[in-house]
């Protein structure tokens, strides 16, 4: 039976909670209701109120309390109901959680789960991809899985990690993506990208839902004789420079792709690392594909125009391949 992306996250948390009594959950409506997206469905029944804690509408308190509990040796996993509300907890994340280790040697092993991404007609506040709001803050790790396998393996690694980890899970993948997962236990390491498609002519470096758009585009391009390599970053901080640069050295042409808006996005960081360290290998401009610099619009035709998709990728890739 294939496991959905959503179930994979639940399974990963479930296993870690069985394994380690210091792991517990904290968030709004995660108990009886099982979470706005039902990611934690059934966990209250199984683990009880002590380990599945429903909170008031207080994102800052949720993250703050997680920090405090972690400083006392627990491993809290928090849920933001939508990633869009993570900005309400921003100071606790970037000022408190991120800096404790450097400042006074204190570990803050917390996980912040943040359901993100568009394509569900959620409008400006239920569709954002806020990962780049966190990749400028040293001390944070930022993860964004694209597959059920990685979602499970990365949530487990995140829970075991000794630093604060932001876990951006893409809502549009929750029930759309599924695969058979190994029966035996596994984890996926934080900080390691993965070449999910080998190719010769150009590299698409991406993550999250856009991995699937890139795969679709690569299929089309393949039939046109353009061989595309796809790197799924999986972790956005710290970036896996080795995997990125190896792919660029191999193909010499790069598209950096994300669903989040263009300016100030993760793509800029990836692009600039490439131009800094693989300049001699480049046979064309580093192209970024991303959403335009606007809030996420609500109405379907606007949202469709807003989101990157296979078609838009194919078009740019053709141009770059010809370059």
């Amino acid at each position, binding site marked *: 039976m294939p496991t959905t992306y959503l179930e994979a996250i639940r399974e990963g948390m479930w296993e870690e909670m069985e394994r380690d009594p210091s792991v517990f959950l904290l968030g*709004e*409506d995660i*108990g*009886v*209701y099982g979470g*706005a997206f039902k990611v934690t469905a059934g966990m209250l029944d199984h683990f009880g109120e002590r380990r599945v804690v*429903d*909170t*008031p*509408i*207080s994102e*800052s*308190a949720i993250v703050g309390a997680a920090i405090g509990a972690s400083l006392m040796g627990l491993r809290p996993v928090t849920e933001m*109901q*939508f990633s*869009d*509300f993570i*900005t*309400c907890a921003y100071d606790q994340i970037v000022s408190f959680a991120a800096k404790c280790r450097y400042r006074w040697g204190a570990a803050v092993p917390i996980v912040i789960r943040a359901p993100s991404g568009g394509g*569900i*007609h*959620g*409008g*400006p*506040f*239920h569709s954002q991809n806020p990962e780049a709001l966190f990749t400028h803050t040293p001390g944070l790790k930022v993860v964004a899985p694209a597959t059920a396998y990685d979602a499970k393996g990365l949530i487990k690694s995140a829970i075991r990690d000794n630093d604060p980890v932001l876990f951006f899970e893409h809502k549009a993948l929750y029930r759309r993506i599924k695969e058979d997962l190994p029966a035996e236990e596994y984890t996926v390491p934080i900080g390691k990208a993965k070449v999910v498609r080998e190719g010769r002519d150009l590299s698409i470096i991406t993550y999250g839902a856009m991995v699937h758009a890139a795969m679709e585009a690569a299929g089309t391009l393949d039939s046109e004789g353009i061989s595309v390599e796809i790197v799924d970053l999986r972790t956005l901080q710290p970036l896996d420079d080795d995997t990125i640069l190896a792919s660029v050295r191999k193909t010499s042409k790069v598209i950096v792709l994300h669903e989040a808006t263009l300016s100030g996005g993760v793509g800029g960081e990836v692009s600039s690392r490439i131009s800094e360290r693989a300049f001699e290998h480049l046979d064309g401009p580093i192209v970024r594909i991303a959403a*335009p*610099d*606007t*809030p996420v*619009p*609500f*109405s*379907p*035709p*606007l949202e*469709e*125009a*807003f989101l990157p998709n296979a078609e838009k990728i194919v078009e740019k890739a053709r141009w770059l391949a010809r370059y």
Partner: protein
Amino acid sequence: MAVAAPVRLSTGGEADSEPALAHRFLYYMRLMREAEDRIERKLYRQGKIVGGVYVGRGQEAITVGAGLVAQPDDALFPSHRDMALFFLRGVHPRQVFAQYMGRVGGLTRGREGNMHMGDVKLNIVAIISAMAASVPVAAGAALAFKYRSSKNVAWCFFGDGATSRGDWHEGVNFAAVQKLPLVLICNNNQYAYSTPLEKQMACANVADRGPAYGLPSEIVDGNDVFAVHAAAQRAAAHARDGLGPYLVECKTFRMTGHSAHDPADYVPGHLWEQWGAKDPIARLERLMLEKGWADRSDLDHVESEIRREVDEAVEWAERSPYPDPSELTDDVYAPE
């Protein structure tokens, strides 16, 4: 007795006769109920609504009772369950349906959805999703009124759950220190999504929070539109007199799931019955019949008029086009 012609624009505040007031209450409460029912129970299920749907079923007395106290130039900060505030200010149901369908005819031209709408000319400020973010913003609107020595008031509507947020605290505290003309209307419907009150706060009433800011607060039956109206008048008078913010807690119940996709299994069954019996519209109608302010046919007439108005509005909205993708990147910044 004939129904007074529906007055779309609230003239606010003036001393209406009780029967006339009752008719206005009824009109706006029914219009809100009918519009929301149509959205939640029909259009949503038909797949004609874009995105999520939050309604104020059972809470109409709060929106309308308080809303009708607001002066036309007062600033309104509706919550996600206050549709009638838009009607009170003259927004046409057409625009509301178009909003919910993501059409150009909606108040936000398809940029935003459902209750996330506002109108600059009508002084209605669109909420953002983050609960209670409007509270400091409403305090700022009140500051602007004080700054200009105007007698206007900012009206901020929110739920019980929103009071847990830091923004609620900061906004109320700031307004209290500055003695700003801010009226705080809480719809305490006893749930925030699936979270019951006792998991939201450890005090019995939202009104118990007033003293923490040195501000007067009172509790009213939120299903009694006259009671809400009277409390809102006290609140507005206090604020307009320069005495600072005033908190009205309206006890009510959310007679739906959190949103259209939520069956609300977590609500104990007897609560539906208990609160269903207190429906604010049925209650108002009973009162009007009792007092002889209306007879059954008057009430039926209001209902059928509103139904026709809504039918027409839905049709209009469905004909409203979707926004053109060429508009996608407009209006992020002011034109140069």
